[in-house]
C-alpha cells in the first residue's frame, strides 16, 4: 500500500489549508519522509506559490489526468528537499476536468514510491472537495477559533462521515493565546468539545507566516517560528510520534499555560 494519503480540508476558505499543506509537506520531508503534495484547488492554484515552486511548473494535475504528460513530468521536485514533490493544480481549466476516481487512480500510482501524499483541498463542499477526499486515508480539518469557521468544520465532519472518510482530525489554526486567556476567543478545548473530534494540532497566529508565503519559504523551514514549530509537531504526530501540545503562552508555569490553552485535557475527546 505504501504512502498514506492525507487530505487537508476545511469547508470555509482562508482558514489556512494551503499554509498547512505546504508546511506539513516540508516538515515531513525534513523528517526524511518521501512526500508528494498535490494541489487539488483547480482554477485557484496557489500551493506552488506558498512553496516557492511557481516558476518551475510545466505540467499540472489536469495534464496528468488527461494524458498530456507522464506522471513524473508533472512532479516538481523541491530543490532543498529532493524527497519532496509538488503536483500543481491547473490554473485555467474547468473544475470538472478531474473526478474522484481520477484522484484515486493517481494516488494509487504514487503510493508505492512515497511515504506521504498530502492533498490541498479547495474550499466548499463541491466537486473539488470530493476529489480531494476520495483517495484519503486520513483527513485533517483546518479551522479557526471563530463561529463561522467552526460551523463549516462541523459540516465537513458530517460529510466525511457520510463519505466514509471520517472522523478526521482537527487543526485549530490562528489561535491567539492572549485572547483565549482574556476569554475573547474560543479555546482549543471549546472547539474540540463542540465538534467532538480528535485534535492533532494547535497553530498560533504568527506574524512570520505571511512574509514567509510572500517569499515562498514556508515557516517550517526556519527554526524560530512558533507556527513552524506547531506544524513540525503535527508532522511528527502524523508519523506516529507522541508529541505533547506546545506551550503558546509566556506567563504562568508550563502546566498552567497548557491547561489554559487547552482546558487541561489531552487530545482525546
Amino acid at each position, binding site marked *: 500500500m505504501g504512502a498514506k494519503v492525507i487530505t487537508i480540508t476545511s469547508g470555509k476558505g482562508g482558514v489556512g489549508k494551503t499554509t498547512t499543506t505546504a508546511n506539513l509537506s516540508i516538515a515531513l520531508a525534513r523528517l526524511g519522509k518521501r512526500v508528494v503534495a498535490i494541489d487539488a484547488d483547480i482554477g485557484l492554484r496557489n500551493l506552488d506559490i506558498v512553496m516557492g515552486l511557481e516558476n518551475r511548473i510545466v505540467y499540472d494535475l489536469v495534464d496528468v489526468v488527461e494524458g498530456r504528460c507522464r506522471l513524473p513530468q508533472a512532479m516538481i521536485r523541491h530543490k532543498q528537499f529532493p524527497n519532496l514533490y509538488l503536483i500543481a493544480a491547473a490554473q485555467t481549466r474547468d473544475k470538472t476536468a478531474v473526478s474522484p476516481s481520477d484522484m484515486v487512480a493517481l494516488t494509487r500510482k504514487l503510493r508505492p514510491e512515497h511515504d506521504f501524499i498530502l492533498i490541498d483541498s479547495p474550499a466548499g463542499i463541491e466537486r473539488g472537495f470530493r476529489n480531494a477526499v476520495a483517495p484519503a486515508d486520513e483527513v485533517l480539518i483546518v479551522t479557526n477559533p*471563530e*463561529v463561522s469557521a*467552526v*460551523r463549516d468544520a*462541523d*459540516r465537513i*465532519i*458530517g460529510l466525511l*462521515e457520510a463519505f466514509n472518510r471520517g472522523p478526521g482530525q482537527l487543526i485549530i489554526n490562528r489561535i491567539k493565546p492572549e485572547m*483565549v486567556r*482574556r*476569554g*475573547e*476567543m*474560543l*479555546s482549543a478545548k*471549546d472547539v474540540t468539545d*463542540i465538534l*467532538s473530534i480528535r485534535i492533532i494540532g494547535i497553530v498560533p497566529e504568527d506574524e512570520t507566516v505571511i512574509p514567509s508565503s510572500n517569499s515562498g519559504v514556508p515557516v517550517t523551514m526556519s527554526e524560530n517560528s512558533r507556527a513552524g514549530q506547531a506544524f513540525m509537531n503535527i508532522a511528527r504526530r502524523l508519523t506516529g510520534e507522541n508529541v505533547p501540545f506546545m506551550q503558546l503562552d509566556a506567563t504562568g508555569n508550563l502546566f498552567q499555560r497548557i491547561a489554559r490553552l487547552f482546558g487541561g485535557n489531552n487530545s482525546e475527546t
Partner: protein
Amino acid sequence: MSGFFDRLRGRDRGSKNKAKERLQFILVHDRISLPPEQLAQMKREILEVISKYVSIDEEHVDIALQPRDRTSNKLIAEIPFKRRAHPEEVDEAAQGEILDVIDEDEEETVRVDPSRINEIEKQMDVDEGKQDEQPAQDPTKPSKTTD
C-alpha cells in the same frame, strides 16, 4: 475603578461564551438540516394536531432539540394538557387505558394510548356535558377547548 476590570472581564468572557452559545444553537440545526424557522413551524403543527384531541396548556409547552453529539440529537417535548376532569373521572372514563396520570398543582400530564383517544374523548365529552358548571377559567386567556 475596581469595576472597570470586572466589566472588562465580564464583557470578554461574554464574547467567547457568546460564540459558544451561538455555535451550539447553529450546529444543532445544521446537524439535522432543520433551520430554526422550520422547527418553529413543526412545533406549531405538532401542537395543532394534539389540540384536535386534547386541550393543551400552551403556556407550559416545551418542545426543544436536545443536542448530544453529531449522531444522536433528539426532540424532547413536554406538552402538558389542561385540566379537564378529576383524575378519578379520567380513570373511569378511560377504563384503565390511561397509562400515566401525574397530578400537578394546576394541570395533569396525561399519556394516553393514541388508538384510544377518540373513545376517551367521546366519553369525556359525555362526562363534561353532564356537569352543570364549567371549571373555572382564567378570563385573560381565551378558553381552549377541543372543538
